């Protein structure tokens, strides 16, 4: 009788310690998950800010200004434009 009790006591202690360890692990993992989620949110915010920055840099007015002034580009006028019509018959040719 006493032997069984002793074995049960040992088993119980082992289980209790196991529970404590797994709980601790779970919490640690959860904290990590939480941190990563926070980071994901942070990155999302940063993405928004980068998008914003991109659109600001890519403002059409700015691009056009640089193209015209710094790169000395210009829209070709019609005399220098060659239209290539698609091979299929279109109603444009009239």
């Amino acid at each position, binding site marked *: 009788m006493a032997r069984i009790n002793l074995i049960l006591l040992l088993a119980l202690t082992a289980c209790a310690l196991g529970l404590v360890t797994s709980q601790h692990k779970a919490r640690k993992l959860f904290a990590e998950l939480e941190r990563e989620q926070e980071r994901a949110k942070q990155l999302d915010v940063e993405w928004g800010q980068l*998008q*914003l920055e991109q659109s600001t840099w890519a403002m059409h*007015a700015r691009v056009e200004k640089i193209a015209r002034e710094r790169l000395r580009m210009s829209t070709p006028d019609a005399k220098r434009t060659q239209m290539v019509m698609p091979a299929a018959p279109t109603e444009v040719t009239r």
Partner: protein
Amino acid sequence: MNYAASPVLALQLPLWRSRLLLALIAGGFLVLAGRAVYLQGLNNDFLQQKGESRYSRVLEISANRGRITDRNGEALAISTPVKSVWAIPEEVQYSSQQRAKLAALLELPPQEVDKRLNESTSFVYLKRQIPPEIAERVSELQIPGLFQNREYRRYYPGGEVMAHVLGFTGADDAGQEGIELAFQSTLAGKSGSRRVIKDRLGQIVEDMESIREAQNGRDLALALDAKLQNLAFAQLKLAVESNKAKAGAIVVLDAKTGEVLALANLPTYNPNNRTRLSGAQLRNRVITDTFEPGSTLKPFTVAVAIESGKLTPESNIATAAGSLTIGRATIHDAHRFGDMTVAQVIQRSSNVGAAKIALGLPPDAMWDMFDKVGFGSAPRLGFPGAASGKLRPHKTWRPIEQATMAYGHGISVSLLQLARAYTMFARDGELMPLSLVRVDAPLAGKQVISPATARKLRDMLELAVEPGGTAPRARVMGYRVAGKTGTAHKEENGGYAEHKYVSSFVGFAPASDPRLVIAVMIDEPSAGQYYGGAVAAPVFSAVMGGALRMLGVSPDAPLKPLELPPENTEIKEDV
């Protein structure tokens, strides 16, 4: 002496005393046990709640407001987190050095900081919506009683170019104008909350429950084309400046789908910095302002006449007199060309001709046409403040009013209504519903006039932009263009102002298979020119040419340089 033999011990106490003590102690234990059972078993909510409040916290989960993009996914409005600094004035303690630093960081005068922190309220905002980096430096000052809030601020990379379409949001990130207001329920996110367990270090160790899921606002893709919008805005700006005009507006519609590809107004404002805004800057003239359209309405009168079979484009209208007297009023044409055909009435924009055509029509037929193309009723856009314009019931029309309405006076429309009405000519008689958001499957139009009539009108409108018409400057090299000028005196104090005009042009191209409808309006041009053909038509031409090229529309006309008629020989329309 033997202790056990002490006589004190020999004293015999009455039995009831020990019994009483036993009963009292037992009673005390019973009360305690009862209380314990009550607190832990029967009524345990309160204590459990108290216990939970030591370790569990309810966290707010913030939700983002949806982004607004153009039809190609280019970002037009994005919310990003910022900080607001607030204080409990009673608790604030700072040195003068800290105050100076704080004031510098917040870009406020030191006196202002003092004033706000000496208010007798328990809560005061020092500054709202500051960038996170600056907020970080403010918290480094470690001033007690100073706190920060996370808020969202909306940025508009397009700035003044898109201001009127997009509108803006207020400090609490709720839409106040434009698309932001119209689509508030779509864009707005719903913040959620959840309950968690925090440990001694403030770290979250366990998720207990999700009270409310956070819902991010949905992204919205507009019909707008950012590139086209920039082009339209730049050209409009050029025209308003060179004509010294008070205001201007332009709208570009896709004739195939009814989408609004570009919509610009001047004067405008920068939605990212909205200090000192005037009503004139905020007004979206395209949608919320109405004006007397003038001659741009003539095609509708002619359409009624042709649709009813009373006239053909070749029918003669007796305009030789150059004036028409109805009752006490007389309508004049600026030039006398002799008798004109119906097509020439449109081409040369003759008021007398249009009036004569109108007088041959029943008022209800004209009213019916105006009503069907959407004049007098606000377009269904969901846009705040869309104007309906003024179209009086035909029973109240006097003959002179019917005659003036034929050439666009005594009736008022918004530029958007006018552009939409022209989709009827651009689409073989089908009027398109408009859309500010991207349409993936084209909406169904409404047939208003027969395809044959629409084609005849299209031919007449093409004549108007050719030499001999009122708007040769509206032509675009490589494309056949059709359109109509309008020049109207401005209404003022119940009459017409002598030298204040509204110049407009509405047209579409390529005429063989119209793709775009563009309407331009210039308010009070005051640099000498005021005819629609001289002021508004060049804007149309520049925007149309650029837009067709951007969209890759095949040319339908020979690529010959355009020749403008020599100065002063252009046909001036009647005002």
